[in-house]
């Protein structure tokens, strides 16, 4: 079944001309149909109502044209074959009928006879077309007998007409009767008629059954036929209400009759029928509008007629003005009501999107909820919204909201664009068209906001990651430098000093020995300097863990520092950051706070390390005041942590740092 669907959308742009030379037979059939249809007109002219002379050939050409178009795209599609055949039969019937009008021509009676049953054969085959629509097969195993049954019914009714007196009175037989009738076969015609009526009802029922089971593109195809049924339901009763003589109604019917083959053709060939729902809803609203306006016109005319005493031109004018005044407001209301009734899903979905946008503007909703909203609104729990960040190139290039291919799981992709920029790609199982396209276009602003947020988040994450990498690299570099100073330069200086001591020892009491004393002292000073330097680069206590390092730090402070630390093993970078924060904070306390005591706390809270340094000094510290604090904030921020300074004037200062410990 799937194979019969055209490989859209690429084929949409194929030029039919290219196919003409490859498919001569279908084209020849249409040419024959056209020739017969055109030829029938002069033969019939003046011998039947003008509308018949125009309408039936037109119908034949429409059928044949629709059949050809389908056959060019889908050569084996049975509906295409049937329509092309029907078109030819209809044109041939017209030709035979027209010939038959000329009694004096040879074999005119036989032409009348052929026209009488071949026309019925064509009409009855409509049931077969409906049974096979849209894919050329029966709707399922349970219906597989239906197409043969409709064919049988058509054949029976045609055979009955050909061999019985059932149509003897019709205008086809200008001399009164069927020349080839066999007495007693009227019953065959009656059975055929009954079978045809049944097959028509069953064909419609099969369409309904198909519709209930269908989804996606198939459902849209079927909807188009139902749209035709809607049109028929509006125009049919109007025609039946006795306006048959009216030229307007006749023209309407003339335009309507070719509509079925056109609708079938469009439904089969257009892969995705975006606007069928709109078409149906609009048809219904305009029909309802027409009826309401007619009622308004009639009521006004009656009322004015009663008041003014009937029949005047004023009555007609007044009623027309009243009806015209009602058009616009009425149209909006009718359309709204129809939308609510027949496009409820769309109406509801758009209302939800609007509410969400309002919430988004008011800050009550987050752009991140967008995917959930779309799933909800479109009733597609598998829907995925992939925001396309600026640096990503769009997966497909298309204009507006373009449709991509459908994968084996029935999912298709839709690209959402705004002002030529691809914003997002939506993967969905709901069909393209309504309400998807409307919802996505209505949600465009939210998608753009979500995309911008995602882009900012993405960039921020990259910056944060690179900052963390830089800090980690610095950290590692400091450790390496410290190690090099300890194990390299310091060791060598100690060795050199020892060597000098040995020389000094061998020199004994010579004056040079006393000179060496100064040199060795100098070397000792250099070693201490190096140790301080190494300690500044990478404080040695850090190797002993944060708790010890903090206690060591507190022990070196020139004022009482109470340490409460219980934090367990921590990532190296966190230990270093916490240590430096504590050191800087203590330095600030000593320099500025005029404090008498400090409390240093370190603990784990929800996996984070929380470090606080609290003094009882004068407070009033400002974060911007010291570049040291700025540097601390940077270091803490690089690890994804937060730094808070709480320093009310006269009430001490508390510096709190929270560092996440994911290594």
């Amino acid at each position: 079944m799937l194979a019969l669907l055209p490989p859209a959308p690429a084929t949409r742009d194929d030029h039919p001309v290219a196919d003409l030379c490859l498919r001569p037979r279908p084209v020849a059939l249409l040419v024959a149909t056209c020739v017969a249809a055109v030829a029938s007109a002069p033969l019939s002219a003046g011998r039947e109502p003008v509308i018949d002379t125009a309408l039936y050939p037109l119908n034949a050409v429409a059928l044949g044209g629709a059949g050809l178009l389908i056959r060019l795209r889908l050569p084996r599609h049975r509906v295409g074959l049937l329509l092309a055949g029907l078109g030819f039969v209809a044109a041939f019937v017209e030709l035979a009928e027209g010939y038959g009008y000329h009694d004096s021509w040879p074999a005119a009676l036989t032409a009348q006879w052929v026209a009488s049953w071949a026309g019925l054969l064509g009409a009855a085959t409509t049931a077969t077309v409906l049974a096979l629509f849209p894919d050329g097969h029966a709707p399922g195993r349970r219906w597989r007998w239906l197409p043969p049954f409709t064919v049988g019914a058509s054949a029976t009714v045609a055979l009955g007409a050909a061999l019985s007196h059932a149509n003897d009175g019709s205008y086809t037989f200008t001399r009164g009767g069927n020349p080839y009738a066999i007495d007693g076969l009227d019953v065959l015609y009656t059975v055929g008629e009954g079978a045809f009526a049944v097959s028509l009802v069953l064909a419609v029922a099969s369409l309904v059954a198909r519709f209930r089971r269908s989804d996606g593109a198939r459902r849209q195809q079927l909807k188009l036929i139902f749209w035709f049924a809607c049109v028929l339901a509006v125009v049919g009763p109007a025609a039946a209400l006795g306006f048959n003589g009216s030229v307007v109604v006749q023209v309407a019917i003339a335009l309507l009759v070719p509509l079925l083959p056109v609708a079938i053709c469009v439904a089969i060939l257009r892969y995705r029928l975006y606007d069928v729902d709109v078409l149906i809803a609009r048809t219904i609203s305009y029909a309802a509008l027409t009826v309401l306006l007619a009622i308004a016109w009639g009521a006004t005319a009656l009322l004015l007629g009663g008041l003014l005493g009937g029949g005047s031109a004023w009555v007609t004018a007044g009623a027309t003005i009243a009806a015209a005044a009602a058009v616009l407001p009425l149209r909006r209301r009718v359309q709204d009501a129809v939308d609510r009734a027949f496009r409820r899903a769309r109406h509801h979905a758009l209302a939800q999107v609007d509410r969400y946008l309002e919430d988004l503007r008011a800050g009550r909703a987050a752009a991140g909820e967008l995917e959930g909203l779309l799933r909800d609104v479109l009733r597609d729990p598998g829907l995925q919204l992939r925001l396309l960040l600026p640096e990503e190139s769009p997966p497909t290039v298309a204009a507006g909201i373009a449709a991509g291919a459908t994968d084996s799981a029935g999912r298709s992709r839709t690209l959402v664009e705004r002002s030529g920029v691809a914003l997002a790609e939506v993967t969905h199982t709901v069909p393209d068209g309504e309400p998807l396209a409307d919802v996505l276009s209505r949600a465009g602003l939210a998608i753009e906001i979500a995309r911008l947020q995602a882009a900012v988040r993405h960039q921020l994450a990259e910056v944060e990651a690179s900052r963390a990498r830089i800090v980690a690299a610095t950290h590692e570099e400091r450790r390496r430098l410290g190690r090099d100073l300890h194990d390299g330069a310091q060791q060598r200086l100690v060795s050199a000093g020892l060597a000098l001591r040995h020389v000094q020892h061998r020199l004994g009491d010579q004056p040079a020995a006393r000179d060496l004393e100064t040199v060795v002292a100098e070397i000792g000073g250099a070693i201490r300097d190096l140790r301080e330097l190494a300690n500044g680069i990478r404080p040695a206590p850090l190797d002993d863990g944060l708790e010890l390092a903090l206690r060591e730090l507190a022990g070196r402070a020139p004022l009482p520092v109470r340490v409460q630390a219980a934090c367990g093993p921590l990532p190296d970078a966190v230990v270093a950051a916490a240590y430096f924060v504590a050191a800087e904070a203590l330095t600030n306390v000593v320099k500025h706070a005029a404090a008498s005591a400090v409390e240093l706390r370190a603990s784990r809270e929800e996996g984070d390390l929380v470090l606080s340094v609290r003094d009882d000094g004068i407070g009033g510290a400002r974060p911007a005041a010291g570049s040291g604090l700025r540097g601390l904030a940077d270091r803490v921020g690089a690890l994804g942590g937060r730094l808070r300074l709480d320093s009310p004037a006269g009430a001490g200062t508390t510096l709190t740092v929270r560092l996440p410990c994911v290594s």
Partner: protein
Amino acid sequence: MRVVIAEDQVLLREGLVRLFEDRGHTVVAALGDATALLAAVAEQVPDLVVLDIRMPPTFTDEGARAARAVKDAHPGVGVLVLSQHVEARYAVGLVTLGGFGYLLKDRVLDVGEFLAAAGRVAGGGSALDPHVVGTLLAAQGTTDPVAALSARERDVLALMAEGLTNTAIARRLVVSERTVEGHVRHLLIKLGLAEVEDGHRRVLAVLAHLRHSALPAPSTQPGPSWP
């Protein structure tokens, strides 16, 4: 003194050997790593083992583990650990032992004091670097022990650090000797050193004071610079 030396850097090892030998001590073994140390100690039974805390193969705690092993196997042998900087986590379990020393490497340049410290350790006493003591006190959870002392107790502690006896301290402060004894007892308790053997705790107390009074001016303290 009969000395065993374990130090991976050749020049430094040679220097240490000559240091001891120049002053008439005997270096019975000089090793490049800790693997053969225990065997050498068992064979030679020296008075003192001098060893680097970082040695091959991993340069982390080989020296500390070797020191612990020597003390476990030969409690009478003094062990003097040398380190480039204080690594408290390796020293915590060792310092309360008698006959143990932990000095920064550059102390060896002050030959007289270094050999005196080595002699104390060989004789079952202590030789702890002020930095080591500070870190160790902190590690025991005692924060800023000296800050908890009264002004008079701090005076007594400073004089103890200068090497004065209780009698000399009493004379200097113009108080009775019993008063000084009371101050010494109180300050030792406050420093959390009361349970330690007498001579050793006095050393710790004095070193704690040294650490405290050696602090530079507040403007450069505490903590390292951070660009």
